[in-house]
């Protein structure tokens, strides 16, 4: 079957599908925004002041600043992955929204693209809320912080692409627990969210360099702290690779499923 491996077909037909998901989000917006603000606020205050009172600073940076600039990346990854796994799976397999879409003049490629962009959008909402909390705590008040938003969107797309591969392979919600506990959680611990990667054994550092979350953190953290990323091209290339390869793989597996 050659059509399964065909190149992705991009078109603006994704928009009404994206808009549908946005409308549903809008209906439940209040609860969603409260969660988006409360969760990082509690985490930052609890960890920042609890752990931060013992561990004053890392490489000359106040710990709460260090933590905030890493955990915004982690939160975007989690928000995007959650949407691409649990929510997309509900629309695909439980509510059968995808089946309804395919009876309209839409193709599977349109749906997968819409889910990718929607997951990234939703994770950006979450990232923006966290940024607001950080500003309120006096963190990240630098002009270059505006660059963080497009980077978070790219991060959202990347993790959505990887999540949609899992979505296409899943036979039920239980499958996603493996992805979260065996892939995403370990990645958080080796990507410099809570402590510098330099603390890790050198072989693990070498692996960490290739991980998408590590790339996001090394792009976003310096911008939040008022500096500039050290290896922006390398980090962007890593993210672009995971995003594009992940999307193509997600398409292949989804086409095979249908």
């Amino acid at each position, binding site marked *: 079957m050659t059509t399964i491996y065909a190149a992705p077909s991009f078109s603006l037909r994704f928009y*009404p599908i994206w808009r*549908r998901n946005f*409308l549903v989000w809008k209906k439940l917006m209040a609860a969603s925004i409260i969660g988006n603000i409360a969760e990082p606020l509690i985490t930052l205050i609890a960890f920042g002041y609890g752990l931060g009172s013992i561990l004053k600073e890392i490489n000359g940076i106040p710990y709460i600043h260090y933590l905030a600039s890493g955990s915004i990346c982690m939160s975007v990854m989690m928000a995007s992955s959650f949407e691409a796994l649990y929510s997309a799976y509900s629309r695909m397999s439980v509510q059968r929204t995808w089946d309804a879409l395919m009876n309209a003049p839409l193709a599977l490629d349109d749906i997968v693209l819409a889910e990718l962009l929607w997951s990234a959008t939703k994770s950006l909402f979450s990232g923006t809320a966290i940024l607001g909390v950080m500003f309120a705590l006096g963190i990240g008040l630098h002009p270059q912080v505006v660059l963080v938003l497009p980077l978070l969107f790219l991060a959202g797309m990347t993790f959505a692409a990887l999540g949609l591969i899992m979505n296409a392979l899943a036979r039920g919600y239980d499958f996603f627990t493996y992805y979260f506990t065996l892939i995403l959680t370990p990645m958080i611990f080796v990507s410099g969210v809570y402590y510098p990667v330099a603390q890790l054994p050198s072989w693990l550092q070498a692996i960490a360099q290739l991980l998408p979350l590590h790339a996001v953190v090394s792009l976003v953290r310096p911008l939040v702290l008022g500096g500039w990323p050290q290896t922006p091209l390398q980090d962007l290339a890593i993210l672009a690779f995971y995003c594009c390869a992940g999307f193509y793989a997600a398409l292949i597996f989804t086409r095979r499923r249908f």
Partner: protein
Amino acid sequence: MKKQRPGAKDNMAETAILSVSKLHKAYGRGADRTSIINDLSFALRRGECYGLLGPNGAGKTTTLRLCLGLATPDSGTILLGGQVIPDHARVARMRVGVVPQADNLDPDFTVQENLLVFARYFGIADAVTRARIPELLEFANLTAKKDARIAELSGGMKRRLTLARALVNDPDLIFMDEPTTGLDPQARHMIWERLKSLLARGKTILLTTHFMDEAERLCNRLAVIDHGKMIAEGAPQALIAQHIEAEVLEVYGENAKAWAEQHGKNHAARLEYSGETVFCYTNDAQSLLTSLQQVQGVRYQHRPANLEDLFLKLTGREMRD
């Protein structure tokens, strides 16, 4: 070159809104590979209701999926509204409405939001849809429920909304996959009445069902398929007349079988046993009736042969699945 005169069949293929020719589809790999659709051909005339009848697993839903371009056939050709399927399925679906077997309405939206959002998938402007929504709600008898959420609707209301949703793009052809399965008699009658009014407006309907009364009532023509093969095609009454005796006596009660063995088989053209009941098929029931009036311990029902008799004759009485 010999010039071929356009015969009836060629004409049919040209004017057909949907034509399917020599379709084959198998699923699975290696030794597990099973044929689902086997050399299936049929064509729908504009304005007719065409039924696909078959036991569970006969290939009805697969046929619909193939016609919509949602699955790729192993071989054969499909033309839907003049478009080659599956290559141009997306374009062809602009003019098609689908009522799927399982409801897949959007639970997060109200009744009218479901219509509005679905119309956007066809690229229809909101203003156009908003102007059409009252008429669609009226048709589905859901005007009073326009702001209700999907969870508040009964099964029959959900089916009617699904039907209204299939009409947002004013389609020429509507695919209906078991539209009345799971509905109570009132709800079924209402759906039938709506389908008839669509036919009266010149729409074409492709209907799958395993309710014989539904097919007999609605279909101008129908195909009986089993194991992915067509085993009969035609108008319901013509098919009954062609394949089956005109009258049926259903005989049951404690002595039914004994009577059938001793007397029934001498008078009926054909006998079939199903559980406690003996089905006697005949073109002249008089001698059977006379014989039945002389025995004790049997009860019977005398009726004209119907589509169900035909269906059971063609596909057998064994359980499927």
